[in-house]
């Protein structure tokens, strides 16, 4: 059985603090005082390099060249980096666990945990006057230059260093601190500089003097939530104010003139000071606790406490969370404590268990919740289990309790316990985990190459596993020395049962490390064409890119590849790639018809597509304005058509087209009429209406126009001219091939009823009554109907007739017809 949780509790006024040992460090003989140290929060790793300002005994084993060591919180060496650059001013960690190293000349290096880095400079100001100090937070940093100017960089994703307002200092500040943008009112970074006896608040635009007299301040620290500022004065006083200097919170005299080596916040309600081997924790009401160590230590502030790294162990100092306190505080009789006690009785078989439950019955649900929460705050698995058991026990007495919280806490604890395991070495607390989110935790695991654990956690929490797998595959490719076949098979085998995994990034990595063949093979597994195609293009896999684009069906992608190829390749090569791909050919044709007829002609020519050549040439001819070039184009087209027996009709049609154009051009000169552009029928029509029947007749015989059509043209033209005599002549010239009804219809359309009557007589007797009705001649209609002996038709005519004299006559016809 584990020691009772309260054994490491210490009371500070009305609240309890605890310092728990989490790991015994794996490192040996470590003297932290000799190092410049940076610890990442959220249980992150520790970076250290020998501090060149401190005197060191030259020992035999020690390497001469400086080295940055990266350790886990459990003191396990992750990586060591040979340091070859200039003097390091400071080090720090980003939220994504990248190590920031700030150099004297304003150069910043960003290392990942395996020593790969990118670097950039803070700009001219920093370079010219060098950096003398630097403050780093999760997403940015502020550097103090040799001429006491401030350079801020607020986003490591987007390197854009900016000079802040000039604080106007002439000497280095006694101390300084930064309030990260997310905690300031303006949402921009603010810097607090201790100078003289006061503090300047500096942002991008101005430096504001807070007009304090308590200084000089030799040390300061901003609380993790950005609200409070802890100040250490030269006369040994610890003073806590709000960061806007409006509220005075507490004061505490330490009796030490020497400023502490470290001044950090423990959560948001107490401050921890560290002098050589002595740790002093000061609570909000001036109470304090002192811890002594045998060796140098290092403090890493966390959102809910302080991690204490010493030469032999890693400890966590925090305020005892409320839930834990309620349950374990000696002699406490609040419901959660009673519930926890009830379980104990139950396990012993004591009836007091039942009694306990009865007492707290009305608030049992809250008690269960508290037990669950307290379980989350425990590092010790024995107590985690005990608390969860108590919660489960209490839960059983509740009729409707939503067990989601219980289940999710069990899951969370499993995850937390597995990452806290000393081999992994991430001593993250429940509160930190909630703030960090599982996603980021997974990222951190991946970055430390704990792929298997990350995968298991993802699967367990039902999160997406792709990025773990993709990262794993990428690392595999970077590290592996096997041949591409082996790597490819290894990766594909592992990822085979994960449908919908994107291979593009893996392929890209392969390409970047100089394995283009492997990249191509991997890309084949990428389901998303939109990701596949651009990469293939950048890998110069032109034809493959085109094939994949076509497979995707996304024509935009096909065009993207095709236009890229057209720019890049000689025309012949371009056509060669396109030719055997129907879809690409079709799209090229569509594109060219809109944009580039010349290219299309070349395309058809190289493939010897004569008929298409002809078609395109004809299209070109339509665009020509002058007759000469129009006809020339058509002649070219004619040749193409003539080469193909299948297109004899088209050849003939084009031939006629040319003839027509020539005839029209001649006629235009003779008759002074615009004709080009008209169809053959229309041309004849124009000839007739301009009294040139001879020309019309010639066209008829030249183009072998059928009689029927010619009569129609003539009929329409003559009616249009209202040349009734000519029309009459036409009608009488021979038996009309189109009958005489069209004559009647056209006359009616021209509202010439008298003329129409003439032709009605020539029509078939059966249609005559109807035609007479159309011109309103009911009498004649009646007579014709009588001749047909159609009584029904007669009465129909009668009903339409409104002239009563004719109506009477019609009545007599009806009588006549019916009498017979």
């Amino acid at each position, binding site marked *: 059985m584990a020691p009772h949780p309260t054994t490491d509790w210490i009371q500070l006024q009305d609240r309890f603090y605890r310092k728990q040992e989490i790991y015994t460090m794996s490192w040996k003989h470590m003297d932290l005082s000799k190092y410049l140290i940076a610890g990442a929060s959220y249980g992150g790793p520790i970076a250290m390099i020998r501090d060149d300002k401190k005197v060191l005994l030259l020992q035999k084993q020690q390497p001469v060249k400086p080295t940055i060591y990266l350790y886990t919180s459990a003191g396990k060496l992750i990586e060591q980096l040979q340091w070859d650059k200039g003097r390091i001013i400071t080090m720090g960690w980003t939220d994504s666990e990248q190590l920031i190293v700030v150099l004297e000349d304003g150069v910043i290096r960003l290392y990942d945990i395996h020593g790969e880095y990118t670097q950039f400079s803070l700009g001219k100001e920093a370079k010219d006057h060098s950096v003398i100090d630097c403050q780093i937070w999760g997403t940015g940093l502020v550097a103090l230059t040799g001429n006491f100017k401030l350079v801020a960089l607020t986003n490591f994703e987007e390197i854009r260093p900016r000079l802040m307002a000039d604080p106007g200092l002439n000497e280095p500040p006694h101390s300084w601190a930064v309030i990260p943008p997310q905690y300031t009112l303006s949402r921009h970074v603010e810097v607090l500089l201790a100078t003289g006896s006061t503090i300047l608040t500096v942002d991008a635009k101005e430096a504001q003097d807070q007009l304090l007299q308590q200084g000089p301040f030799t040390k300061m620290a901003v609380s993790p939530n950005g609200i409070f500022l802890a100040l250490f004065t030269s006369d040994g006083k610890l003073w806590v104010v709000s960061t806007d200097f409006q509220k005075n919170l507490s004061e505490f005299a330490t009796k030490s003139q020497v400023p502490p080596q470290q001044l950090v916040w423990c959560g948001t309600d107490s401050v921890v000071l560290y002098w050589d081997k002595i740790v002093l924790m000061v609570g909000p009401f001036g109470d304090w606790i002192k811890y002594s160590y045998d060796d140098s230590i290092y403090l890493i502030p966390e959102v809910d406490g302080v991690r204490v790294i010493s030469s032999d162990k890693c400890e966590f100092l925090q305020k005892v969370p409320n839930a834990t306190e309620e349950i374990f505080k000696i002699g406490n009789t609040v419901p959660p404590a009673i519930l926890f006690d009830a379980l104990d009785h139950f396990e012993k078989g004591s009836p007091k268990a039942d009694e306990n439950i009865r007492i707290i019955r009305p608030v049992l649900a809250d008690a269960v919740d508290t037990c669950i929460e307290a379980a989350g705050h425990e590092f010790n698995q024995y107590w985690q289990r005990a608390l969860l058991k108590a919660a489960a026990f209490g839960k059983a007495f509740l009729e409707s309790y939503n067990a989601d919280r219980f289940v999710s806490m069990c899951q969370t604890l499993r995850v937390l316990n597995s990452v806290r395991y000393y081999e992994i070495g991430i001593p993250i607390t429940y509160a930190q985990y909630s703030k960090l989110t599982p996603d980021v935790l997974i990222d951190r695991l991946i970055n430390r190459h704990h792929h298997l654990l990350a995968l298991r956690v993802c699967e367990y929490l039902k999160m997406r596993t792709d990025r773990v797998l993709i990262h794993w595959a990428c690392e595999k490719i970077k590290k592996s020395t096997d041949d591409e076949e082996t790597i490819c098979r290894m990766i594909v085998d592992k990822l085979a049962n994960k*449908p919908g995994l994107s291979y593009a990034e893996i392929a890209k990595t392969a390409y970047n490390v100089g394995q283009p063949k492997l990249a191509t093979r991997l890309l084949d597994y990428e389901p998303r064409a939109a990701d596949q195609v651009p990469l293939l293009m950048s890998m110069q896999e032109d034809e493959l890119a085109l094939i994949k684009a076509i497979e995707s069906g996304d024509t935009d992608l096909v065009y993207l590849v095709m236009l890229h190829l057209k720019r890049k390749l000689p025309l012949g090569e371009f056509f060669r790639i396109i030719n055997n791909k129907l879809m690409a050919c079709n799209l090229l044709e569509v594109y060219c018809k809109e944009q580039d007829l010349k290219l299309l002609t070349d395309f058809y020519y190289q493939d010897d597509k004569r008929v298409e050549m002809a078609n395109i040439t004809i299209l070109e001819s339509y665009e020509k304005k002058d007759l000469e070039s129009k006809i020339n184009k058509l002649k070219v087209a004619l040749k193409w058509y003539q080469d193909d027996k299948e297109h004899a009709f088209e050849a003939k049609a084009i031939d006629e087209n040319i003839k027509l154009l020539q005839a029209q051009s001649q006629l235009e000169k003779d008759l002074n009429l615009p004709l080009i552009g008209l*169809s053959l029928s229309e041309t004849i029509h124009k000839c007739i209406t301009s009294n040139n029947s001879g020309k019309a007749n010639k066209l008829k015989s030249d183009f072998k126009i059928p009689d029927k059509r010619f009569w129609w043209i003539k009929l329409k033209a003559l009616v249009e001219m209202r040349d009734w005599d000519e029309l009459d002549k036409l009608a009488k010239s021979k038996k009309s091939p189109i009958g005489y009804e069209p004559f009647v219809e056209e006359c009616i359309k021209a509202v010439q009823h008298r003329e129409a009557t003439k032709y009605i007589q020539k029509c078939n007797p059966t249609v005559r009554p109807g035609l007479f009705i159309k011109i309103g001649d009911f009498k004649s209609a009646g007579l014709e109907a009588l001749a047909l002996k159609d009584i029904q038709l007669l009465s129909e005519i009668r009903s339409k007739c409104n002239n009563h004299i004719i109506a009477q006559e019609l009545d007599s016809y009806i009588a006549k017809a019916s009498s017979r």
Partner: protein
Amino acid sequence: MIGEYHLDFIPFEDDLLSLELDYTFKELYLDGDYTSIYYAARALMKLQTLFGLFPRVLGKGDCAKHLADMLLRMRREVAVDDPSSTLVVSQNIDSLIIIDRSVDLITPLCTQLTYEGLIDEVFSIRASHVEVDSSIVGPAPQKSAVGAPTSTSTTTTTTPSQPPPQPQAKKKKIALNSGDKLFAQLRDMNFAVVGSVLNRVAKRINDDYEGRHQAKTVAQIREFINKLGGLQSEHQSLRTHTGIAEEIMGVTVTPEFNKSLEVQQNLVAGVDVNTQNDCIEEMINRQVPLVQVLRLLSLQSLVNGGLKQKNFEFFKKEILQTYGFEHLQTLLNLEKLNMFVKQVSTRNPYANIRKSLRLIVDEVEENNPHDISYVYSGYAPLSVRLLQCVVTKGDNGIRNNGWKGYEDVLRMLPGKTFDEVQRKEDSVIRPKRLIQGQQPRVTLIFFLGGCTYTEISAIRFLAQQDDGQREFVIATTQITNGNSLLNSIMQKTEHPGVTAGTL
């Protein structure tokens, strides 16, 4: 940030979605440009993410197959973006049926005879709006609110050969959708019965107006006033539709319209197929708009498996000489599409198809239709008959036979036939679906290359049968008709002539 916005489907009605891609027919079948298939697949994929996987995807036609394949591919791609939501099989939609326009080109070439169809033929509907002369739809409503017309005159005042007297006449846009109660009632009816319905409605509205004389007490008057707003909007809608109907009537009584309708009906019925040529020749001589001629010639070619060489060349020559040599390209396009070709064998599959799918129904009661053939007064759209193959119950009362039993007729139609079942990745079909024997009721129909208003009406008619057991949702790339179909593939000419244009 500039991103791509996927417009996807635009809903026109509860049962009608359109991608509004106007030229899909030309792009797909003439140019071989499959962009619209990609858009269609993406839009259908969106529906799948909203409503679950279509349990079954059936279809006919090569492009339709292409679309179905692309849907499967996209399903894999979507899994990359969000694998946690591996799509479940839809509980509402039982299948997706994809009909490729190239399978049935006959239907759009026929003149639509429903009210909405004829509006589209005569005025052409764009995005469910029609633009007509403001004189047609009558004066503004406030003018004569109470003096309701007592009857609808059906005599015609204008003929299409004489253009309206004022060419400058103001155009008015009218929304055609089910928001207009009267239109909702009329739209799917055969035009032959529209007149009598309008008459009946006019009488009722008049009676309602007369109701004001019975209003004696203040309460009664208030009640009448409350009704008045509704009456007035009804009245306006009646005026609009009476005007439109009259205008359409003006077209339907012309000999040109009736001649061409007669030719169409003879062709699809296979009656006197060869004697229709004279009529078509006369139409060319009369210089009716080319698109009308081409509709008939294409129909002729489609139902006969092509034209005899002599006739084929004769018509081509007549067209070129009458409408201009530029239309050589138009004719080549039609040939490429297999719509207007030379007969190569005397075997004519259409005759068999007509018989086995019962495309011609002799007795049509326009007033009280029993079959979808009412939309063309005797011809049942082939495309919808194909749908019926899939959705009507088999002998055993279960309807998931797919194409079973119709393999022979499908073989005669162009393009691939397919029937695929979609499952969840882990291929575990949830037993949940079988609870209470509840079956999904919605069938999604997708027309690739466009559908006509008559086809929509016919499908709505099907939905009403079967006691409303089945709902159909129609999705299409665009709504089309013979004119828009052919116009898209006709050679555009800058022809100064008077006859080359369309209506």
